[in-house]
């Protein structure tokens, strides 16, 4: 097969030295669609620019302006025809392949995960604000937020009423001072005071940050707001000390020193504060994957089953799909289209729901399969039957796809070839084996490889049916039907919360395995194509 791809592009190239009319050969609808789509690009670019400016993300903004400019230039000028064809693919490649891969790779070198999501400043703020407690035996006050100036900008003042003495005081960052001429409600809330403008909730909520930050110093602590209508005397139990780069407990004097290698504040006895931050950890996630006994131990068995599952799902669905396609390819079958329609049904149903339905059908006591055949098999409870069950489910879910693509490929094979072979004396089997199958494989091998790669990482197929089980009694981490992806998901997210860095490192290993298998398979396909093409 000789490809003709070079043809049209060459013809569309402008003649050298001669400027072309810009919209040559484009219909009116085409032009309108082009204007609308390019207009959308510009609109989205402008829409995306606002948050970028707001966040002062100048690099992102530069990237945005540059890509938009390049795209507009590309599609508004008649030149760069090859680039016009390449741009969409390149954009998709960057957006959906290169960017995620780079992002995953960069995450793999950090400890990003639960307890290590933000930066150090955020961890310090979290520790300090979590340590503010009400001073024992202190009072709660009715609070009105007021200002001596303009409601939107004037300096904030807390007007509070002592619940015992009914004394009204005004407090700001300098401290409390008593005021006398204030109107107070029965509950102690100040509704008016000379020289102060009391903010209503709407005005106050516009200055939320300042209100939360305001602490009126008093003996033994500070008066802070609890919402907009109540204040309490609180005290921060822990504070960050820059001189020692540590957190100090004001009551006990204990210190936790910042450890930049683990991204946490650690005490001398090894106790860590829960609120940590994200740091680079070098290759430690990768070495952990390699050295962790709980990974390396069952790794080989899981890998073997993983290959068996991927090959079994792909091979099984292909064989069944192909047999059905061959049967329906024969012109002697009546009502072929009805059959075809019915056979495609499983493909049209959402796999997500079907997997759950199948899981329930395999239930020992209440499942359809045991009831129908009068069996009492604990399908998901034994390694062998659980593996058979997940493969059966895959077979049911996957064969319509194989049936569809094989039908398509079969119709592309000229009937004369089979006829010719029959005239030469070949039987039906020989004709299929020597003529049809090789031609089918040329068309279908790439699809089989991608199906293999998909099934190799078919998380849902396992997670929604057997959940990786059954598990050996002495090892709850690795089950008989676990794929690498479900197994590592459990390792990274099952134990102590989400560990994205670790998960990213594992996924890079899986990527390498799948990539290697696909590369070898594609190399073999190319050899095959050379033979039959």
């Amino acid at each position, binding site marked *: 097969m000789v490809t003709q791809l070079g043809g049209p592009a060459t013809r569309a190239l402008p003649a050298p030295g001669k400027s072309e009319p810009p919209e040559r050969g484009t219909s009116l609808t085409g032009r309108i669609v082009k204007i609308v789509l390019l207009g959308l690009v510009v609109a989205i670019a402008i829409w995306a620019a606002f948050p970028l400016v707001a966040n002062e993300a100048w690099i992102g903004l530069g990237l945005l302006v540059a890509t938009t400019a390049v795209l507009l230039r590309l599609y508004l000028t008649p030149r760069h025809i090859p680039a016009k064809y390449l741009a969409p693919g390149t954009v998709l490649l960057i957006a959906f392949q290169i960017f995620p891969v780079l992002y995953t790779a960069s995450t793999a070198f950090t400890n990003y995960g639960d307890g290590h999501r933000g930066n150090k400043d955020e961890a310090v*703020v979290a520790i300090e604000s979590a340590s503010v407690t009400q001073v024992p035996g202190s009072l709660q006050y009715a609070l009105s937020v007021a200002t001596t100036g303009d409601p939107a900008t004037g300096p904030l003042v807390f007007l509070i009423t002592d619940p015992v003495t009914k004394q009204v005081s005004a407090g700001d960052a300098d401290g409390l001072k008593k005021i006398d001429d204030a109107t107070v409600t029965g509950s102690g809330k100040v509704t008016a005071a000379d020289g102060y403008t009391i903010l209503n909730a709407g005005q106050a909520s516009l200055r939320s940050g300042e209100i939360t930050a305001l602490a009126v110093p008093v003996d033994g602590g500070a008066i802070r707001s609890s919402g907009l209508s109540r204040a309490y005397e609180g005290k921060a139990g822990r504070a960050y000390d820059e001189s020692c780069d540590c957190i100090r407990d004001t009551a006990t004097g204990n210190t936790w020193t910042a450890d930049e290698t683990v991204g946490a504040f650690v005490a001398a006895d090894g106790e860590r504060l829960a609120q940590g931050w994200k740091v680079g950890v070098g290759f430690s996630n990768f070495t952990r994957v390699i050295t962790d006994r709980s990974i390396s131990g069952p790794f080989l068995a899981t890998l073997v089953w993983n290959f068996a599952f991927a090959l079994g799902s792909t091979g099984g669905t292909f064989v069944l799909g192909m047999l059905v396609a061959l049967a329906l390819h024969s012109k002697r079958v009546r009502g072929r289209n009805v059959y075809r329609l019915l056979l495609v049904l499983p493909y049209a149903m959402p796999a997500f729901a079907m997997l759950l339905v199948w899981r329930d059908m395999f239930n020992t006591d209440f499942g359809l399969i045991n009831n129908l055949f009068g069996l009492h098999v604990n399908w998901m409870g034994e390694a062998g039957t659980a593996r058979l069950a997940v493969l059966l489910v895959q077979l049911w879910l996957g064969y319509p796809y194989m049936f569809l693509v094989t039908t398509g490929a079969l119709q592309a094979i000229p009937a004369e070839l089979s006829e010719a072979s029959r005239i030469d004396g070949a039987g039906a089997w020989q004709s299929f084996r020597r003529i049809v199958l090789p031609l089918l494989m040329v068309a279908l091998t790439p699809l089989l490889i991608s199906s293999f790669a998909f099934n190799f990482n078919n998380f849902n197929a396992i997670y929604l049916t057997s959940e990786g089980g059954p598990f050996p009694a002495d090892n709850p981490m690795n089950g008989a039907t676990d794929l690498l992806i479900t197994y590592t998901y459990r390792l990274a997210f099952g134990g*102590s919360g989400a560990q994205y860095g670790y998960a990213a490192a594992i996924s890079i290993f899986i990527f390498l395995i799948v990539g290697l298998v696909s590369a070898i398979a594609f190399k073999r396909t190319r050899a095959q194509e050379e033979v039959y093409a």
Partner: protein
Amino acid sequence: MRLRALGVVAAMTIPLLAAGCGGSDDSPSATSPSADKKAGELLIWADDKRAAALKPFADKFGSENGVTVKIQAISKDQQTTFVTASQQGSGPDVMVGAHDWIGNLVQNGAIDPVQLSGEQKSGIAENALKAVTFNGQTYGVPYATENLALIRNTDLAPEAPATIEDLVSTGQKLKTAKKASEILALQVGQTGDAYHLYPLYASAGGYLFGTNASGDYDAKDLGVGKPESVAAFKKIAALGEKGSGALKRSITSDNSISTFTGKKSAFLISGPWAITDVKKAGIKYDITPVPAFAGGKPATPFLGVQTFYVASKGKNKALAQEFVTNYVTTPELAVALYNAEPRPPALTAAFDQVKGSDPDLAKWQDAGKNAIPLPAIPEMAAIWDPFGKAEAAIIGGADPAKTIEAAGKTISSSIK
């Protein structure tokens, strides 16, 4: 033409992508200009049912205070969504969720403590308040509680069983008389269910985490794998598939309630969420505490507490604090949320208001009298999976000692 159009469509993804890059570059500092626009607005996240129930109260709070209150329903993975969104600066001001999230939310700096007055605290059920207390701080305002109890079909079993052994013998009699096909509907499944098994585990003498002097859970004292847990699982194994068959892996979270409503079993161990289905099936039922093993400890279920949280990274924290501490603590809201889904209100005033119209409430409360708050420490995340699998294996007939010791090892290695 088509190719070219496709190209432009694809091209539109570039600006989006660039926006994505910029967003992740420096999200922490993302406050100043957009914050001004958002102020005066309170954003609340809740699950679907509660979002609908909250709406009128949010509107009322908004119009009383001259602010806009927006409610957004988050239907799946609320906790993860909240933590991730908070970190990116696109989270809510107030979050509604279960109390056992607290440990993880605190270590991620996602929620702020609330300071309740003595009066407010005394209005909240004591065990609910204890559940939202973590490291000596109150981290939210509870509004409803939930716990497991024994739901019984009174036509099949008129008397409430005094012990698990009673329950099993009644169930077996019904089975021989062909009135039921299962002894008990307690969800296990192929991977177990630690939450639903816990009352039996506790009654048989097992524990998950010990407590320190101040009554907080101590992650260093892991009870799984200890001799007590082995003894407990020996008793549970006797109820399993190789024993009396009261506990079976074929009863799962999907079919346990329908086994009961389909009259296949006279007993169901479940929570308030099951009652709607039971009522719909028209079954005469009664709710009693989960029975203990004869001569065992009380079968204490876990107490779950639905809670309002103030988000640390919310844009309007003062207003959020006002809403959570001074508005959620009023009974009207708790009653409305009760009407959306019948879980016992945590505010005693609200509970008293609705208990007259719903005789089940007092029964749920009685069943949860000894309930212990679900541990909120982050280490609890390491328990669920291995514990459940060990449970399923033992119920299926595996050796209790070997299995639970292996689970204990797995748990302690992922805690460290």
